């Protein structure tokens, strides 16, 4: 489904650097006033890993993404992104750090007063460090990756939900992020469009080795990512170790399960069983 022209990501890290986790949550808790939202959350992602976040509505999954992006600061604990502790960075330093992280929001969050071109090129236009031709070329390249080059002149309101999600992913990819965060990218989409989005995520994981944290309510999307790879322009079944994809289930503000697709599917706990069913 997707085009052949994948955007380039950051240069491949050295072997030693590949061992270093790029995203670390170390006993992270978050409260809004008296209400505790996350409690002692700890996990880490190495370069190229994908973690799928599951949990009931209101379990704190989206909040976790915002913590990774520095949009929220933890009440206690540490969030380390590419070796930098997010909670200690100034707002200006956070803006620089976010250059290496892309996010696709739940509702796409496209700027409704800007065209697709300006949405995708937003960060480059704001920085003003590249020529108009260079920005246009990059915008077309990432739009081609999500197969939406023809929509470059359109406004967000003219796009379907699935197209908006793809533009949102293209916008996140424009500055070649090392980490991608996806907040329910297939929520509210029909199965065909949802599979298209999942294939995009898989392409980024397998071709560009982008580290990903994905929130989803659709278990089938998670299991598709955990059991398949993108190979020669097609989905292909693969063993779990080849997909570098694992699951994390939140319950009552805490991590209830952290492990592979196989472990999740065969977990004896009644809550996990009922969640999977």
């Amino acid at each position, binding site marked *: 489904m997707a085009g052949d022209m994948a955007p380039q990501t950051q240069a491949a890290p050295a072997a030693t650097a590949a061992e270093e986790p790029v995203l670390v949550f170390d006993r992270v808790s978050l409260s809004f006033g008296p209400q505790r939202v996350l409690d002692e959350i700890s996990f880490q992602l190495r370069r190229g890993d994908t973690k799928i976040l599951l949990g009931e509505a209101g379990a704190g999954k989206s909040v976790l993404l915002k913590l990774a992006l520095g949009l929220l600061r933890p009440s206690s604990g540490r969030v380390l992104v590419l070796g930098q502790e997010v909670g200690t960075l100034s707002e200006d330093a956070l803006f620089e750090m976010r250059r290496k992280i892309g*996010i696709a*929001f739940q509702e796409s969050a496209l700027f409704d007063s800007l065209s697709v071109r300006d949405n995708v090129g937003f960060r480059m236009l704001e920085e003003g460090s590249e020529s108009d031709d260079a920005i246009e070329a990059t915008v077309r390249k990432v739009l081609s990756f999500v197969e939406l080059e023809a929509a470059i002149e359109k406004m967000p309101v003219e796009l379907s939900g699935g197209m908006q999600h793809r533009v949102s992913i293209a*916008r996140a990819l424009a500055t070649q992020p090392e980490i991608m965060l996806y907040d329910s990218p297939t929520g509210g989409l029909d199965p065909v469009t949802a599979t298209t989005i999942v294939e995009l995520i898989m392409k980024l994981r397998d071709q560009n080795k982008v580290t990903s944290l994905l929130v989803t309510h659709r278990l089938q999307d998670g299991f598709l990512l955990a059991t398949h790879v993108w190979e020669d322009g097609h989905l292909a079944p693969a063993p779990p170790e080849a997909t570098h994809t694992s699951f994390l289930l939140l319950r009552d503000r805490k991590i209830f399960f952290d492990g592979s697709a196989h472990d999740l599917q065969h977990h004896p706990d009644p809550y996990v069983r009922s969640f999977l069913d």
Partner: protein
Amino acid sequence: MPEVDAATTGVGDAMSGWLKGLLQTLQEFTEQSARAFRNIVARPFYWGDTFLQMNLIGVGSLPIVVLTGFFTGAVMALQLSATLSTYGQIGRTGQLVSLSLVRELGPVLTSLMVAGRNAAGMASELGSMVVTEQIDAMRALGTDPSKKLVTPRLLATVSMMFFLTVISDFCGMLGGFVYSTVVIGLDPTQYWYSAIQILGMDDVVQGLIKPLVFGLIVALVGCYYGMNARGGTQGVGRATTQSVVAASVLIIVSDFVVSRLLMGFGG
């Protein structure tokens, strides 16, 4: 009397909660305002956004400001001439119209009109961006929303409020002139001569400082409520209403404070 004690405790808790909420709002408002001011001298400068907002606020508000100013002047001439005629001082109509407009009514009415139109507009536009995560997206894409959205609106509102007030003052005097000459039959030269002669430098200064203060209030209050909107479309509606109410009340209160201060300085 356990019931009375419980009721007293409940009232005390409610008061304490209200006070905490008020202090928190003040703290957030001050922080956001300070950030908007700091950004005036911080790169990058969003001149394009600022000129766009000047157009939306200045040119967009022109019709209501012209109409409000004109008919305020006309109705003042109508009311004042009736009173002045009983003392045989109808020739002073122009003086009273211009003095009232330049010192008080021009700045206050213009600001209330601009608050109704633009504080509401800012709160609803920014509030919609908040609830659809566009503000988070902007931060995620490395852009400071305060710098790109709040500071241009602040600069545009303050500068445009100044010119809108000048236009409103002129239109008010024109309204008074039309009524005085057409209905009352005053001599046109006498109207304009008395209207302009009565104005001293302190009146003009007072009339031109006030719109700058009111412009700050409209922009900062509108942006504050917009950027802090919560709870979906209902929250945006609530933020819009609150912004207009808060901006209007603050304009009236600050009008008294500024008038007192300026009259104090003027002796």
